[in-house]
């Protein structure tokens, strides 16, 4: 079981769209997949037409109520959803009261070992105690990044934070989203940044209206516009993530990443 968190300190960068589309692709390939909507806004739950409601709320889950009982089947084969709940806004407070505040999420997810091939976490923005839990529970942090100055600054903050906190037992895979090829800045950043951060995925998600339509269609892009540019971009990105996962298991990514950091 691999845990992949779609995370960014910054909001509005396409985390939920990435989590929804990548988990949908994973399930379509026959991998047992779960997406956990950790964002109290509940956008991933909305996309899968599930009410953002967990009966005993975040507190119930933290008390050991078990994740299994609140998992919902989506309309797609192999794909389940753990819905959001508005009480998740208090997760930091609840985690703070726990015995091992930074490892609660890992402990909760452990119960699902063997049941899923991939678990995607759709994370809220910010850098909080919940984020640290996410870092420790994840095998890979997928960081959707818009090629703009503020987004790059957020990525830099994340990398520095992880280095400072000694969080080196997972891998960070940033990738560009909402890339608008008509903008010179976007083009330049997409071209230059991967030289400094070798872990950056080569594929990127374009800025496209079919992704925006996810809210109207309430589904993954591939389900209604499978031949579109965005659906293909997510497919390529998912393929690359799987390749990177294999590479990570062989220890290659960490070495390349360390080398890239030296260069940066």
């Amino acid at each position, binding site marked *: 079981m691999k845990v992949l968190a779609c995370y960014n300190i910054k909001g509005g960068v396409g985390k939920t769209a990435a989590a929804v589309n990548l988990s949908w692709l994973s399930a*379509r*390939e*026959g*991998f*047992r997949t779960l997406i956990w909507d950790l964002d109290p806004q509940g956008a991933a739950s909305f996309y*899968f*037409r*599930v*009410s953002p409601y967990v009966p005993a709320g975040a507190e119930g889950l933290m008390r050991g109520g078990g994740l299994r009982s*609140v*998992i*919902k*089947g989506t*309309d797609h*084969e*192999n794909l*389940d959803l753990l819905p959001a709940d508005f009480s998740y806004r208090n997760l930091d407070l609840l985690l703070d009261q726990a015995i091992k505040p930074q490892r609660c999420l890992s402990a909760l997810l452990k119960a699902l070992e*063997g*049941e*899923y*091939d991939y678990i995607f976490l759709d994370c809220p923005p910010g850098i909080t105690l919940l984020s640290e839990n996410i870092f420790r529970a994840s095998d890979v942090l997928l960081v959707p990044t818009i090629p703009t100055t503020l987004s790059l600054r957020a990525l830099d903050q994340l990398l520095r934070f992880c280095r400072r906190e000694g969080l080196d037992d997972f891998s960070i895979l940033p990738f560009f989203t909402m890339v608008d090829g008509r903008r010179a800045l976007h083009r330049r950043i997409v071209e230059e940044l991967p030289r400094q951060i070798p872990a950056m995925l080569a594929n990127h998600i374009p800025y496209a209206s079919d992704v925006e339509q996810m809210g109207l269609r*309430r589904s993954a892009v591939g389900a209604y516009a499978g031949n579109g540019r965005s659906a293909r971009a997510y497919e390529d990105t998912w393929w690359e993530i799987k390749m990177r996962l294999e590479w990570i298991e062989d220890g290659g990514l960490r070495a390349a990443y360390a080398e890239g950091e030296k260069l940066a």
Partner: protein
Amino acid sequence: MQKAYHFALPGQSGSEALGTALRHAGFAFRRHPISLLQRVYYDTFDWRLYAAGLLLLSEEGGEGLRLRLRERNSGLDVVVIDVVDVPRFAENLPQGVMRKRLAPLIEERRLLPLVSLENRGDEFRVLDGQSKIVMRAAIERYRVDGGDGRVRLRSRIAVVPVRGFAEPLAKVLPALEHDLQLKQIDGGVLEEALDAIGRRPLDYRARPDLRLKRGEPIGEAARRVFVHLLDVVEANEDGVRQETDAGFLHDLRVAVRRTRSLLSELKRILSAPHFGHYRAEFAWLSRLTGPVRDLDVHLAAFHRYERWLGGSGPELESLRAALRKRRTGERRAMLEGLASPQYRSLKKGWRSVLDEADERWRSGDAGVPADETVRELVQRRHERVLARGRKLDRDSEDEDFHSLRKQVKKLRYLIELFPGAMHAGEARAMLDDLKSMQKLLGRHHDFSVKLSVMRELKKSFREQGRGDVAAAAKSLCERLQDGKREAEQEFIRLFDRMAADGVGKKARRRAGKIRESSQ
């Protein structure tokens, strides 16, 4: 726990009634006609999936070919994958939960089609206020491809819940039961389909599961076991001839070995003169089928050889090719043997001996209750195993280890072939010990057989002037020799440990118990 529900549907219609029932229960739905769905159930020849509570089925229709791994009890899918062809072996399955669940179960066995069905009907996707599917209900009308044409199964409504949505089920089930007066049915589609083609689940078992009848004479009990073992031999013949998978030859050989073992254990009890003839004939069958199996095991070890030699080079490929060539020859000889009058006569003759349920199976020593005889034989054989085990040390010959291995197998077969002769807990404890011993003795034997073959290859390649291949064989011989020695030492340690802390005591206590219960 969530599960799927099935209701028998009288007549061929039902879609309108189901739609009305769903509407009355307050649900919106989308109706999707199932124009034609070809469903095939798969399992290994020895029912490994069914026995583990799983079903594997392929469905081919509008959406291509799908493979569903389903829990038998709940009727719910564990995982669904799209495939181009149905994989034949576990290694052909894509990575993921399906492969993780199936690979340890099916091992080397091939997935074979059990039964093929056509389904035409209607699927109703039940929706909530957000147009989310919260339950599926389907009218299913199946026809089975039988040998003599198509057989129609009873039509049914299948109600499949969606995880985490209990409410629709709670409303729809009573509507079907009370409003439509439908009866819930337990049996799955597979069981009905098998029945239609004259089969039933688990209709093949390599090991007899014959409970002893109270006071049943050992002769009668043994005859029942022999009949089962002969059935197993015959059931596996086609798979061996067609080389469907390596499990067929394995099961055939085990049945032969069990037959020989039992004939040998009971030679003083079943004293009919021609039994000696069949002992010799089954020994011939064992020799006939042995080399191919040994070579299969040896060829399967080449991935380890690759590691030992630091990769697959032309030398290793030459060794592999030599073994494959040898296997081709041995297989030809085996197939000739299996097509020979000697083999046909063995089966026919032995079957007719077994079919004659006459006095020879009940009179004299053969008339003694089976449990009594088996307990006595187990006690004697167990003491022999302990005595031989104690004699083994670092200087013992391969033959000594092999001989103990045979004794252990014989003892294990006695316990396994007559379940109920011994107290269940006692039998289980003894079997656990025997399995631990057999595992190490088996490893020792494997190394020993491979070593002897590899030495022959080394010699042969050296004579052909292929020094590079001979050197690779030499290096493998050294590793095999080390492995054999390690297995020897590990076995001696295991046996010492057993003797020192309890197993010896346990064994003696067991022997005591056996003595008491047989008095």
